[in-house]
């Protein structure tokens, strides 16, 4: 009945976010009470829009790399010739998740130097895990009857993979990608501690100059991006699931 309310809220969030990025000065009166008299209320050491785009670019590059590697690996270990690696890869995923992102970031610096590269590596490694895990789950929990039917109808291994297994597993894989992107969006801010150009720069500038308004706007932009992207992915997943015939409801 009131199903349109969430959509409206989301649209409003998107409008506010875009307005804030394009013309942050409109919001100056809102943030002014948070800062001391002479301190700027809106980040003034660079364009918020540029930083947001760079932030998104970093996340997009790292996630694309993670998707390619994680999905390929998951496909390999679920084929018969790679089956020997399946149990190990499961435990590696578990172990990998225990590595704190800050540690990965800090350890990548001596090899790659400061800037965007260590951030990309940390995001890539961290993003691998949810995608790999979900692709594995998707590919190993396919209904046996469907697999039998595909085999029985004389499909080759390759056809089965691309026409049956991957399409059926797609909603689960997408859920993994969504998780990975949301984690990466937040983790990318830490990249600014090693001089990557992300929204973390705004937050860190705020922490250093004791400016709550900076911290707040940096954090809220990232939070809004995460919510919108999360919802976007959820919508795509629903469409995919419906197409794969998995949706129980209408």
């Amino acid at each position, binding site marked *: 009945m009131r199903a349109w309310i969430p959509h409206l809220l989301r649209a409003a969030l998107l409008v506010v976010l875009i307005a804030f990025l394009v013309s942050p000065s409109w919001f100056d009166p809102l943030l002014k009470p948070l800062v001391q008299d002479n301190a700027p209320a809106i980040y003034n050491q660079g364009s918020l829009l540029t930083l947001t785009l760079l932030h998104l670019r970093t996340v997009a590059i790292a996630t694309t790399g993670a998707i390619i590697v994680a999905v390929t690996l998951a496909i390999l270990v679920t084929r018969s010739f790679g089956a020997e690696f399946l149990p190990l890869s499961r435990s*590696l995923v578990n172990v990998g998740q225990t590595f704190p992102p800050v540690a990965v970031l800090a350890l990548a610096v001596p090899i790659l130097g400061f800037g965007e590269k260590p951030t990309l590596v940390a995001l890539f490694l961290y993003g691998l895990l949810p995608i790999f895990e979900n692709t594995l789950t998707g590919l190993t929990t396919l209904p046996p009857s469907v697999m039998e039917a595909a085999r029985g109808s004389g499909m080759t291994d390759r056809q089965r993979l691309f026409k049956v297994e991957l399409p059926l597993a797609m909603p689960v894989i997408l859920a993994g990608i969504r998780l990975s992107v949301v984690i990466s969006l937040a983790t990318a801010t830490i990249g600014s501690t090693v001089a990557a150009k992300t929204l973390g720069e705004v937050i860190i500038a705020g922490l250093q100059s004791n400016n709550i308004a900076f911290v707040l706007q940096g954090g809220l932009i990232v939070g809004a991006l995460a919510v919108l992207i999360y919802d976007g992915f959820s919508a795509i997943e629903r469409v995919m699931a419906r197409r794969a015939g998995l949706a129980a409801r209408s």
Partner: protein
Amino acid sequence: MKRPGPQKGSRPEWDGDGSLSIRFDKLGVVIALLIAYAVLAAPFATFRANRIVPGDAKGILQALPAGAGMLLLALMAGVALVVLLKTPTRLRLFAAAAGLAAIAVFIGMAATFLTPPANSYARVSPASGFWILLFSFALLAADSITRMRPLPLVRLLLLVMTLGGAAVVLTSGLWDGLSILKEYSGRADVFWLEAGRHVTLALGSLFAAVLVGLPLGILCHRVAPLRAGVLNTLNLIQTIPSIALFGILIAPLGWIAVNVPGAAAIGIRGIGAAPAFVALFLYSLLPVVANTVVGLAGVPREANEAARGIGMTDRQRLFGIEFPLAMPVILTGIRIVLVQNIGLATIAALIGGGGFGVFVFQGIGQTAMDLVLLGAVPTVVLAFAAAIVLDALIEMNAPQRERGRTA
């Protein structure tokens, strides 16, 4: 707690006993290649004249006295041979342990050998070859342990043995020449202080989150209209990046410290550990509450009805039936929180909250990577150990749930 029945051997055994033809192990080929590359082409140790200048990479034979270098090469060749062929799993685990012990001893030896006598500025640190070997042997050990599928208690024992071995090496003075321990020896007091803070932050916020999250989860389970609202709010908190949440909390906590009598006395302040603690607590709530709700929802209706039928009160039912059955799921939530908190607590250093992050960020600031390692390595070890312990706990609790589910 004992597991019911033997484990089903649905996977083929790879032990290869009884077959006479030489067969290669696929993962073994990968590991042997890694070992070969690390030994032949990558540097084993790095020598630097002081802690921040770029270093000279030394191969195994340059980094060690002649005899020792040859011995290490021979040992590595032996391990590579064991992993390459289809050998019994126990032998492979032993080879991994032997390999780890060998590189641990020899990297210490390299440090003593490379450091000029009476030079306290020179730094020797492990180089890429060492790390690749460490990774290969860890991979081999992980694979052997996965194949053996040990009981939870055995896994805990293996963890204790590994940590014990590391403690022996650390206290023996074998590694004292290594740069990471030189960084440590200069700040041993601070190290343990920050270690204490790190653990307090991670465990304390977890404890608080369980204290609040469990009742909140039960409430959400019983009062359905609350559920979506609470879970959505907690979900939203997760989207705020950690450094921002830490920063945002500075203001309200600073205000509380000034305006609420007694707050400052119990350690609430705008910067420092208090905002870090609150931020970690807020992040921890979602996994605890969500898993409590999922766990309680998964309790079979029959179990609840049977309990009601024999006249159990609501309270008895909660503690006697629902909680035990939901325990593995709740524990999974706690595992997620603990591992996540141990990692996130490093960020507390940015707002003066202490913890191992202090060394990480100091190290980044001074481009002193040994200092970064001094902060990062204990964090990783702590998170890893916590994950193993909680996984074992979850497994020990699991059979009850399975019995419940099939009822």
